[in-house]
């Protein structure tokens, strides 16, 4: 078991012929992900890493029945790509693209919900179920199948923690990057609920950062609804207020969204918080042994 993607994933790649799209499609196919189709308007008849390309999502759906779509489309066109995916019945859409205007995401998020679909991202590394499906831009080889569910707002920091877990012999059910933007489709709470319901996930790692209150919401949800051990890490203890730290959503504004508040909320919910990424595996082992 795992969450959201596995051996039964039939993946569609939107923006498949672009530089990012074609590179990562090759990487995903090499990992063993079942990539069934790609879409690039005007790209019909082409192939990328053996994957057939269509002009529209409707055509790709009719010919190949994908159940997940991943979007590698520039920011100006990404909202339209998300609409095209959900309007054609794709239930799970992952948007890698960074730099989408917030106002566009307000409307996109509402529309995705109305359609009953799920969005992951934007501005995220994607999702991987080790040994089954890699749907994103993460390096597959650092992952290993196992009992840990991992959810994070970051990209390379997630790889850092995954690498530490794998080297410590702690494999992952699924690692999910929810993205660094102010408005994202899947929150910590959503991911925690999925891991809580997944019988193979025995413990959960959540990696947060400054900005917003998603970590505080997660802490509340953990104390009320999560029975599995959870370990946290929060990046940005040294971040100054009022400055955007790379991610559009990583900003301490009006004194709210600090690492200290998030760490306090998690600890109050009984979640041990690592002071450095390399400390996560030991905390997870200790939490699982309790």
């Amino acid at each position: 078991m795992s969450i959201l993607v596995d051996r039964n994933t039939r993946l569609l790649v939107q923006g498949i012929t672009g530089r990012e799209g074609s590179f990562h499609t090759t990487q995903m196919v090499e990992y063993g992900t079942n990539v069934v189709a790609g879409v690039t308007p005007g790209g019909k008849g082409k192939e990328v890493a053996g994957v057939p390309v269509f002009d529209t999502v409707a055509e790709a759906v009719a010919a190949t029945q994908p159940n997940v779509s991943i979007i590698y489309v520039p920011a100006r066109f990404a909202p339209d790509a998300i609409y095209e995916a959900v309007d054609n019945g794709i239930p799970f859409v992952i948007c890698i693209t960074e730099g989408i205007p917030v106002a566009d995401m307000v409307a996109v998020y509402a529309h995705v919900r109305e359609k009953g679909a799920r969005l992951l991202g934007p501005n995220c590394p994607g999702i991987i179920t080790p040994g089954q499906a890699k749907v994103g831009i993460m390096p597959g080889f650092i992952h290993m199948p196992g009992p840990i569910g991992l959810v994070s707002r970051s990209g390379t920091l997630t790889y850092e923690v995954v690498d530490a877990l794998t080297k410590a012999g702690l494999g992952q059910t699924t690692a999910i990057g929810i993205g660094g933007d102010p408005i994202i489709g899947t929150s910590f709470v959503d991911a925690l609920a999925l891991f809580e319901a997944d019988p193979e996930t025995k413990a959960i790692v959540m990696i947060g950062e400054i900005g917003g209150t998603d970590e505080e919401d997660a802490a509340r949800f953990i104390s009320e609804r999560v029975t599995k051990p959870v370990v946290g890490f929060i990046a940005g203890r040294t971040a100054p207020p009022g400055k955007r730290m790379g991610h559009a959503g990583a900003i301490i504004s009006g004194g709210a969204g600090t690492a200290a508040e998030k760490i306090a909320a998690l600890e109050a919910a009984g979640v041990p918080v690592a002071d450095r990424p390399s400390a996560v595996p030991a905390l997870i082992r200790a939490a699982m042994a309790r």
Partner: protein
Amino acid sequence: MDIHEYQAAEIFGRYGIPVNPGEVAETPAQAEEIAAKFGTLVAVKSQVHTGGRGKAGGIRIAKTPEAAREAAEAILGMDIKGHVVNKVLIARGADIAREFYLGVVLDRPRRQITIMASAEGGVDIEEVARERPEKIVRALADPELGLHPWQARQVAFQLGLAPELINGFASIVMKLYDAYVKEDATLAEINPLVLTSSGEWIALDSKMSFDDNALFRHPGIEQLRDLAEENATELEARHSGISFVKLDGDIGCIVNGAGLAMATMDAVKLHGGEPANFLDVGGGASAEQVAKAFRLVTADPSVRAILINIFGGITRGDVVAEGITTALGQVDVKVPIVVRLSGTNAEEGRQLLAEAGLTAVDSMDDAAAAVVRAA
């Protein structure tokens, strides 16, 4: 992106919001001239991208043109929280009966645009939100249909306004929401929005910030950028596609990925050092980007050592190492450098770096400890 009060007032005016008349002065003489033209009591207001101007003495009331000149003399050149005042707004005095707060912001947890209003205007709204949250009235805009006029009226009624004042207030709410949406703002705020004793509404202080990701569709807003308000290195970084934030420490950081860059700063601090900057070179960490990053970091004279933290991932470690050595050929770096390199072919990469005379390690903790020792 932030703009000045007088620029925000201009935009609000275009949307039909009644803003207080005012003009910008860059010299005391101009201030006197503008005040004489108004012929009334004026407020002389420092134009800087930070709050707390009043408390810092950056806003003064002047009863005569001469007093306006003196106030401008005192305020121009003043340093308010690290922002030097180059301009003052000379605004006509208003006959204030009541002060309100009105703002439009994004409610992140609800993923909707929200109206915030309070009958306690003119004060720090964050303080009101913390200490007297019941004094703040809110309305959430429909993500697809926008804000309805009935919601604006409801806010007005909830503030306890008299019936004859409802429509005037509600119309300002609608216009401010309109400005927020059409200009891709992240904040549109009037504080205070005043009611004069003759029953008129006037936006006495205007504030607006914009979504950097949406500037591509607002060339006019981009032109309002005040380069004097921005850190020169941060500005240069943005042109190079690098995220950079200047900090107060002495350990320069070059990292791929925003989350890892924050964690790297935290690791430096954990090992007893102080980070000099936040820097995300982007995913690939090419020779070109690393060279730019070296230039940005070494531009800060307080930097005494540099930590490069690259989690290679899909990018091969030996390629990253070559990029770093190539970049070092282009930029003369005089301080010690510690490189942490992990991922595919990281060992070969570290070998290359060691041959080039750099300290190359496998773990982030070791790297942070080593760079703090080297500084």
